[in-house]
């Protein structure tokens, strides 16, 4: 078992958790009841994926030698558990890691803002996820391959949902077109990171566990181009891309997400809920 692999699983898990968290914020506030329900289904899918992955990540972590365990995560809350010799679980992974130990891409932590931002964020992420999970099905790690196969069915539906909404809003009214264009262009700066190989990605690809993100770039860009085109939206201009999430350097948003999400576990440690 390697720390690299643990971090790789966490990348995927954190993407799912944070994306699910953002989408769940819509619950009760959607533009129409039917879509409130649809988006919550998607949020539940992400949350389910996150749980499977965190359970697997926790297993990986618990198998590491003690000296390695102490070095992986710095949060005092997790250190205390390790010191006590206890195995950690999915909830410890989600609730007791500090921000710099989260490896999700910056895109998923961006705010919901409105339905157009939400749809654009989903389109970019779902399209990546679709191709990523397609590749991950061939992982030499059986657990990851199995999770990928199951998740792919869900993600295929997510991508359909987000593509349709981007098209609807882009080709809807003048107002929705304007909003959709703004969202698609604004969030573009966070898409470069999706298919950029960081150290973890390279190592896992080399080991036969991970996906070659370089190969995904064109597939992703082509799929996105098609949707934007059908949505009558202009392709956002290529420019500076924000990076860092996969290595633990985040936007300000993540701190607020974690403050809210982790508050119970942090305030009342070592309790069953």
């Amino acid at each position, binding site marked *: 078992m390697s720390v690299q692999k643990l971090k790789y699983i966490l990348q995927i898990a954190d993407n799912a958790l944070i994306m699910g968290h953002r989408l769940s914020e819509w619950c009760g506030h959607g533009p129409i009841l*039917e879509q409130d329900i649809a988006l919550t289904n998607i949020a539940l899918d992400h949350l389910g994926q996150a749980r499977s992955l965190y359970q697997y990540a926790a297993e990986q972590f618990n198998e590491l030698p003690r000296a390695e365990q102490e070095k992986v995560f710095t949060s005092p809350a997790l250190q205390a558990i390790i010191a006590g010799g206890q195995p950690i679980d999915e909830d410890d992974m989600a609730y007791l890691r500090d921000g710099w130990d989260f490896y999700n891409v910056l895109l998923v932590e961006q705010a919901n803002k409105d339905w157009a931002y939400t749809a654009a964020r989903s389109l970019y992420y779902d399209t990546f996820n679709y191709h990523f999970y397609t590749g991950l099905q061939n992982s030499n790690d059986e657990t990851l391959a199995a999770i990928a196969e199951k998740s792919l069915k869900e993600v295929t539906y997510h991508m*359909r949902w987000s593509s*349709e909404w981007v098209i609807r809003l882009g080709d809807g009214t003048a107002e929705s077109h304007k909003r959709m264009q703004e969202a698609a262009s604004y969030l573009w700066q966070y898409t470069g990171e999706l298919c950029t190989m960081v150290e973890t990605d390279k190592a896992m690809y080399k080991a036969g566990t991970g996906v070659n993100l370089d190969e995904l770039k064109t597939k992703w860009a082509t799929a996105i181009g098609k949707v934007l085109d059908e949505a009558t939206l202009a392709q956002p201009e290529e420019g500076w891309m924000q990076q860092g999430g996969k290595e633990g350097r985040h936007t300000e948003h993540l701190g607020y997400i974690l403050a809210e999400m982790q508050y119970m576990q942090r305030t009342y440690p070592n309790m069953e809920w």
Partner: protein
Amino acid sequence: MSQQETEHKSEWPLWEVFIRSKAGLDHKHVGSLHAADAQMAIENARDVYTRRMEGVSIWVVESKYLHTSDPDESASMYEPANDKIYRHPTFYNLPDELKHM
């Protein structure tokens, strides 16, 4: 134009939803929902009415296209069937030895 029409110009049409709960069974009416178009109606139906794996196939039809028999004519529509008892299998006297019919 009345104020109401102005306000509600964006109201999505109503659709009736029919679901086949498993292969071999008829589609059954389960309820209705709003959607902007047929494709969305099917997807909404999937999200609203099959959250607990209730279906394998979905039909939707815009409610305004559904034609209904007039309940006040139900006497002429359905009662004639009451005396066509020969349409029902139990009408026929068959020997007990006969199985699987």
